[in-house]
């Protein structure tokens, strides 16, 4: 309940935040909604000496429509995403995922940037960002860079962000017209994290054949990851039930599944298939309807 002592900073600009991070490096942690970090600090699993709160930095709480993308500020809360009409219309997969994070109060405070930077292996948004092919904007001492989601999640609780960088924004390219996306999640009954979460984006051509697919899973391994075998199995196929099932069966391919408290590996693999099937089915329905 009582974190170890730390020095608190609330910089007014991104540059100030970067300067603070540069000064304190590994001794510093960024604080946004705090819903990943503060529980870790209360349990003293994390004991940063400096906390850099981004609350006063302007411009991080916006959801913006651009010509070919939607930009979401790092401090946008899950609730803002969940309730955004724009996102519901253009990125329904993200709306669904946001609405299944934690609980209402957690969604009120937890942020897009915080969740992605924390990179919990059972978090929902990393899988969604992988499926949506998002770019994550990092601001550091050397300027700004865009990191593709693909390259962002490195391993358990570890991302490509340098200790001196601030994740400022997520840019999600608008999926093509004939595409549909869906997120399906088996929630842990207690923590509400994903036992398995599957984010699927499917694009159909004029004949109803899959022209592109991006599928990502979370909750199975040490980080969210693309299900490339599933994607490959779909492209060029007419997505009938049998094809979807066959593709879904490969969703955990390349992930070494272990027995855990949620069940033996065989059950977890089965669940992954079930949830992949459900996500793919709805993604295809949405693609057809669009």
């Amino acid at each position, binding site marked *: *309940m009582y974190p170890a002592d730390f020095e608190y900073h609330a910089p007014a600009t991104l540059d100030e935040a970067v300067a603070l991070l540069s000064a304190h490096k590994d001794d510093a942690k960024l604080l946004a909604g705090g819903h990943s970090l503060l529980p870790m600090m209360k349990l003293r699993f994390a004991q940063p000496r400096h906390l850099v709160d981004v609350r006063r930095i302007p411009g991080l709480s916006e959801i913006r429509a651009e010509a070919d993308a939607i930009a979401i500020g790092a401090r946008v809360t899950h609730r803002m995403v969940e309730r955004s009409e724009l996102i519901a219309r253009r990125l329904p997969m993200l709306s669904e995922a946001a609405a299944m994070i934690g609980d209402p109060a957690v969604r009120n405070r937890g942020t897009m940037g915080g969740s992605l930077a924390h990179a919990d292996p059972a978090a929902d948004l990393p899988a969604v960002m992988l499926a949506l092919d998002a770019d994550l904007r990092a601001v550091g001492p050397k300027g700004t860079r865009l990191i593709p989601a693909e390259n962002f999640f490195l391993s358990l609780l570890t991302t490509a962000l340098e200790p001196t960088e601030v994740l400022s924004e997520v840019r999600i390219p608008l999926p093509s017209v004939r595409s549909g996306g869906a997120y399906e999640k088996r929630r*842990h*009954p207690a923590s509400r*994290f994903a036992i398995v979460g599957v984010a699927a984006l499917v694009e159909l051509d004029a004949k109803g054949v899959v022209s592109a697919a991006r599928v990502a899973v979370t909750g199975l391994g040490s980080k969210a990851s693309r299900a490339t075998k599933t994607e490959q199995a779909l492209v060029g196929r007419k997505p009938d039930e049998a094809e979807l099932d066959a593709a879904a069966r490969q969703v955990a391919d390349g992930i070494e599944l272990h027995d855990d*408290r949620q*069940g*033996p590996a065989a*059950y977890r693999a089965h669940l992954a298939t079930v949830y992949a099937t459900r996500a793919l089915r709805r993604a295809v329905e949405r693609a057809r309807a669009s």
Partner: protein
Amino acid sequence: MPTTETSGRPLGASVKRREDARFLTGRGTFTDDVKLAGTIHAAFVRSPHAHARIRGIDTGAARGHPGVQAVLTGRDLVAGGVQPIPVAWLLPGLKMGEHRVLAPEVVRHVGEAVAMVIADSPAAARDASELVQVDYEVLPAVVATDEAIGSDVRVHDLAPDNVAFEWSIGDAAATDAAFAGAHTVVRQRLINQRLIANAIEPRSALASYTPASEELTLYVTSQNPHVHRLLMAAFVLGIPEHKLRVIAPDVGGGFGSKVFVYPEECAVTFAARSLARPVKWTAERRESFVTDAHGRDHVTDAEMALDADGRILGLRVNTIANLGAYLSLFGPAVPTYLYGTLLSGQYAMPAIHCTVRGVYTNTTPVDAYRGAGRPEACYVVERLMDLAARAMGQDPAALRQRNFIGADRFPYQTPVALMYDSGNYQAAMNRALEMVGYEALRAEQAKLRQEGKYLGIGFSSYIEACGLAPSQVAGALGAQAGLWESATVRVHPTGKVTVFTGSHSHGQGHETTFAQLAADELGIAVDDVEVVHGDTGRVPFGMGTYGSRSGSVGGTAIHMSIQKIAEKGKKIAAHLLEAAPEDMEFTEGKFRVRGSPDRAKAFGEIALAAYLAHSMPAGVEPGLEETSFFDPSNFTFPFGTHIAVVEVDKETGDTSLRRYIAVDDVGNVINPMIVDGQLHGGIAQGAAQALWESAEFDENGQLLTGSLMEYNVPKADQLPMFETDRTVTPSPVNPLGIKGAGEAGAIASPAAVANAVMDALAPFGVTHIDMPLTPARVWQAMQGSPGR
């Protein structure tokens, strides 16, 4: 805001609770809310190992931390005269491992406290606690219930095979004979998994000391402050009982877990006296997980013998009960006298034999958790009933009804010591069948199966022994305390009434129900009765609240005091009305001369007269206040039939609880709204045992479900609305006819839900899965079935 909104008699009405106003406005006073000037704060250093020898403790760095007032270790407490924590229920041959407040030499479970740091703020205490260096020699641990016996690891030297006791009940020879002549025998190994009560308020203690009077005051999260006072003063700290005042203010749920005397509150009280400063400690949830006494944890081999008609001939039960690393306060009683004696269920069983071995392991101590032994017994009996019905191709409801003890057979002597007080089991079953629409539901089940949907209907016809307890019986069986209850009823000169009860409310609503009881019997307004509980400085004596005893035992003590007041009032009224006392009657708040309705004195007039004492009958003392101790002659036996309706998803193994029907007979009811609420909560806890909750350790004794992130206390979206009703069969054991309602839901529901899941899985040939019935387990069972 008036609390009474009923025009009729208060007794039996759903009077809204007077407690609610303070809780709903944030003005409740829980232990951690209590602020005393000059308070310093304790944090405990806890063992990260399940079993280790303490080579040494270096407290230097912690002592030097800013704000630290003291660091105490187990040796300091031993030197200070602190004695081990006692056990309140002894069994013959019980091997009692010494349980020290702070472990001086050996730690025996993860989370056991080895040192206490006291500092100016909780944060400073926590900071400094991390600076205490403990040098451990890690020892091998024994964890699993069924591995304790025969393990090379010895938890306590005095129990070489880790067996604390071996206990049996019933007639082994008669049971053997019954099995020898059986048409059908069903057998099953049943694991009743370990649970953690998880009252939402963590345990907390705040002790203060007044040097001038040498008096200690302890605010503590307790279900029984007088028991805490006795045990802590007389046994642990060795101080005069009258120098310790224990206050259990608002307590945020207990479910048994706040009955027991725990190390932390003893340490805090010791420190407050040593330092002459108020000392406070409040558990963090992760501390609660490893230090609050756990519940259940049985491994049982059970078998039932039946004749060709499905009549039960005999029951044989062999249980290993995990007691944890130490005997908690009632640890030995729960898996014996609160378990083996209930194995007759609602059924006429000619022969029963049960043996129980209580074993030590390197885990958190195990003690009473809502139901305490009785849910375990119900689970054994009711699972076997369903297994028997399946084996014999009979309807589970019909098989139960064939074996019910008839309503004309009460009082009924079971083969396992108990004498059931009253019952009408068929009536409760009938009502439950009617509510669930049994025949139609079976038809729907058959139809859904054709569609690949798996509906299950599960029964649990439970019996419960509560109203703890006849002291003489309990004493003969090993209890180290009386189990009566006491109440003082004080009538003030204005006719207002204060009831002092030894029962303790931590959610049960006694402030309302006992006021209803007193108001009803005295013929006054509910608002004119104040109920005081939870303070040894205000309530003369008491045994507290557990075992569904407050209404039947605590309520009766109030009733007895009111009877005495009525008798004294009659004497005073007779004197004032110049009538004979034996001609007086007391009805509707008036003392009347029988046959002369206009010759009467109101209750308030008599109250005033008693205190003015200007004109009292000869030999009658002034004042109007009475104290009573009620010691029941028997337990009470609530019963009922619960029906769970579940749907199992073939694809994922998910179980959803569709409906839950509960028909309970808790005897007479003071406040139906509150009784229903008790049932709801108990059902939720029991359903959660069936489906979600489980305390799981790894082989090294680390608790894998050590936070609310892993341990699934059910959330609102996991449960349905509950359909409840009652039959009323008053208990003859107490004048109020109350049986008790606090635990019934938790006793009945694990079996009901588990039976429903097995019923759903019948097409797969699945007959048993151990709780919790997680999707993984259910799915695996379906995969392994030939009928897949």
